[in-house]
């Protein structure tokens, strides 16, 4: 092993130094994929254009990395200077040479016994900053690893996993801080977003997504229901360095499907919060689904882009929400600018002038079951959308699926699930998935490409005028970014529930996607 590593060191610029300036200017080096979503604006857009409609028929797998786990891999890797850093279930991390697919080092995380989560020990990715790689773990730690060896530099406890806290999202690296979200929305936890000193692991600030008694927003919870209010933060947000503002989505209020006790809007659940990067102080919030009883977390990706609404240009946040509505918000104030449904829904008549949903009667869960669109997995979910500045389109993996919502008992017991109901499928109705391209200014549909079943994988757009996505049945595929015409597909052999990325390796464009418990990497055949 040692001779092989020495040999690689001779030909690879091993262990890149990834400064904050590089992260901030990630668009200027499309050969790398430096953050979870590719850039701070979370656009999941690659500026590479080697692979195009004209040559994509020559796209072939060049290597596969198998994680040797039985858990599903949802990771979206980060790539810097020829090295891919990929997280694995639980919070393990492997550094891979992108030319050969061979591991350079591996950090193996042993998850604390008894750690729990609703949906498996998934981990969606890492962050890199300077000479460290950062990962959140399923047992609710955040760990800094030496970028050259994977050795632990520091390991900070974030929360108690025995109460249902876990981390599944990739951290977000700022100038000198590592921002992490947490999961556990089915366990009656109290949600937060944390920032840690990048060098030492000392906690710099915490923003509670459920206010304490007497704080602004606490009046939106009846009695002491805020104590088990959830509003978790399990998908990585975006960052605007100019404003020094973090944008982060929050999850469902607890209990999920029984809102009887928690009368009120339940701030800041199902919201987008804008926080000061230095202090974690709330700048503004926008709540998408007040008093949610359908588990429609707003833990989707906030995409930062310019939008033209009613003739006026805005620095905006674009947001395709699990509640089946698309939103355009002013990035500075949080003011609602535009919105409309982008997936099948039956719960709201529409959005009012402030963006608040006009809720229809008979759309809440009942003990007998209420049929509502979308189902609890939503019009979309955690998997990433993409914004192409070249095509000026917002791409989203949408789901036109309904469900029968059931209301049940909700009794809080620390560490146990606290759901208050559930949802069953609509018998005889096939779930529909669609890749949709929307006008980013309005949410109007430009084109769509239907999938065989509901979508659970994210979307990547490229300067080669391509859109990449995946299917539940294992198809990794590419569409024409302007028309949605299918151009290429490859059967990976396993469920795809992850986000694609693109970068250069040896000067050649590669595209990577996790499928099953492996990472597949593709490049043009010579």
């Amino acid at each position: 092993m040692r001779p092989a590593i020495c040999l690689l060191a001779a030909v690879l610029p091993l262990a890149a130094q990834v400064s904050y300036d590089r992260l901030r200017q990630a668009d200027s080096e499309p050969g790398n994929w430096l953050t979870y979503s590719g850039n701070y604006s979370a656009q999941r857009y690659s500026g590479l254009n080697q692979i195009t409609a004209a040559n994509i028929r020559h796209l072939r797998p060049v290597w596969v990395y198998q994680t040797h786990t039985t858990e599903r891999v949802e990771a979206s890797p980060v790539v810097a200077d020829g090295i891919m850093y990929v997280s694995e279930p639980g919070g393990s991390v492997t550094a891979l040479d992108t030319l050969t697919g061979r591991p350079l080092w591996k950090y193996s995380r042993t998850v604390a016994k008894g750690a729990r989560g609703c949906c498996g020990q998934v981990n969606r990715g890492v962050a890199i900053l300077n000479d460290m790689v950062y990962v959140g773990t399923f047992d609710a730690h955040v760990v800094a690893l030496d970028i050259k060896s994977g050795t632990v530099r520091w390991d900070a406890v974030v929360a108690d996993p025995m109460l249902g806290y876990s981390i599944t999202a990739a951290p977000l690296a700022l100038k000198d801080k590592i921002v992490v979200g947490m999961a556990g929305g089915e366990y009656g936890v109290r949600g937060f977003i944390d920032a840690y000193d990048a060098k030492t692991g000392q906690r710099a600030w915490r923003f509670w997504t459920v206010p304490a008694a007497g704080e602004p927003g606490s009046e939106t919870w009846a009695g002491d229901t805020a104590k088990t209010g959830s509003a978790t933060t399990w998908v990585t947000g975006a960052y605007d360095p100019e404003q020094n503002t973090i944008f982060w989505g929050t999850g469902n209020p607890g209990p999920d499907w029984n809102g009887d006790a928690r009368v009120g809007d339940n701030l800041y659940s199902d919201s987008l919060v804008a926080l000061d990067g230095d202090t974690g102080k709330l700048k503004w919030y926008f709540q998408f689904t007040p008093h949610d009883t359908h588990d429609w977390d707003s833990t989707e990706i906030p995409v930062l882009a310019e939008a033209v609404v009613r003739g006026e240009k805005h620095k905006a946040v674009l947001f395709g929400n699990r509640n089946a509505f698309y939103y355009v918000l002013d990035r500075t104030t949080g003011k609602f600018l535009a919105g409309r449904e982008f997936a099948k829904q039956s719960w709201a008549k529409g959005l009012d002038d402030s963006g608040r949903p006009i809720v229809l009667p008979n759309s809440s869960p009942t003990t007998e079951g209420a049929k509502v669109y979308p189902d609890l997995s939503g019009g979309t979910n955690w998997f990433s959308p993409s914004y192409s500045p070249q095509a000026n389109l917002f791409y989203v993996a949408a789901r036109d699926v309904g469900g029968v919502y059931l209301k049940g008992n909700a009794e809080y017991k620390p560490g146990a699930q606290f759901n208050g109901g559930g949802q069953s499928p609509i018998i005889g109705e096939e779930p529909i998935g669609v890749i949709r391209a929307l006008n980013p200014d309005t949410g109007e549909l430009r084109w769509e490409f239907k999938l065989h079943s509901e979508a659970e994988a994210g979307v990547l757009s490229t300067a080669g005028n391509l859109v990449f996505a995946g299917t539940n049945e294992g198809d990794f595929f590419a569409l024409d970014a302007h028309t949605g015409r299918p151009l290429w597909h490859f059967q990976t052999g396993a469920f795809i529930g992850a986000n694609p990325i693109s970068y250069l390796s040896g000067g050649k464009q590669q595209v990577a996607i996790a499928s099953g418990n492996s990472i597949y990497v593709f490049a043009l055949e010579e």
Partner: protein
Amino acid sequence: MRLVCVIFSFTLAALAQIDPEYVIPKENPYTTPADVKNGQQLFLGQCARCHGSKGEGGRGAVLAQPRLRHAPDDDSLFLVIRDGIKGTEMPAGYAVDTRETWQIAAYVRTLGRLAPETVPGDPKRGQELYRAKGHCSQCHIIGGQGGSLGPELTEIASRRSAAHLRAAVLDPESTLPEGFLEVRVVTKEGQPITGVRLNEDTFTIQVLDLNGGLRSFFKEDLKELQRDTGKSPMPSFRGVFSATELDDLIAYLVSLQGNQ
């Protein structure tokens, strides 16, 4: 395949209220009359649609029998209700906590004490009708013998009630299993092929044609792909069998319990 994906989605969506620290006792701790009554209510809401209100079966297994193949004892029954049975149409329980799962189990055990379903007819004569007059073995396998176009029937009685089987013989399209789809494709060369969908994704489809041939197509290579939802290649046997013969045939099918 679709079922697998659906089950995956449920897992993702956290439907089962599972306490990972819960140690499942060997015996049901919730068996009072009040527990059974609550279990019955939950059963009627969530289980009866497939298993019948008295456990007589339908789309789901017959539960009104003393021994359940997947759940011979209390703890295995608890697990089946809580987690479902992978690879089958049986899903995990929706929105039920540990106590409610046990209460459903308590009610299910009362079904096992109902008198077994009596079916008129002679199973021996039914077996002969199955072979000769019905030519059923052309499409169905029993004990390793027969054709593979239709579902295997070796243990069909453990999964379907007599009433369901009778309906399947007389009106096959009223009893199609979840995910079943007859398709008709026309190749670019103009060749029409009808069959049963085995699998499908966004770009391809796999079909068992009516001659028993396994076919796989890229959709872009097809001139036509028609989904005949609700259709079945199985003919109706209404008018083929007399009332007595039908009783005999159903008696034979009800005797097919597999290896208990």
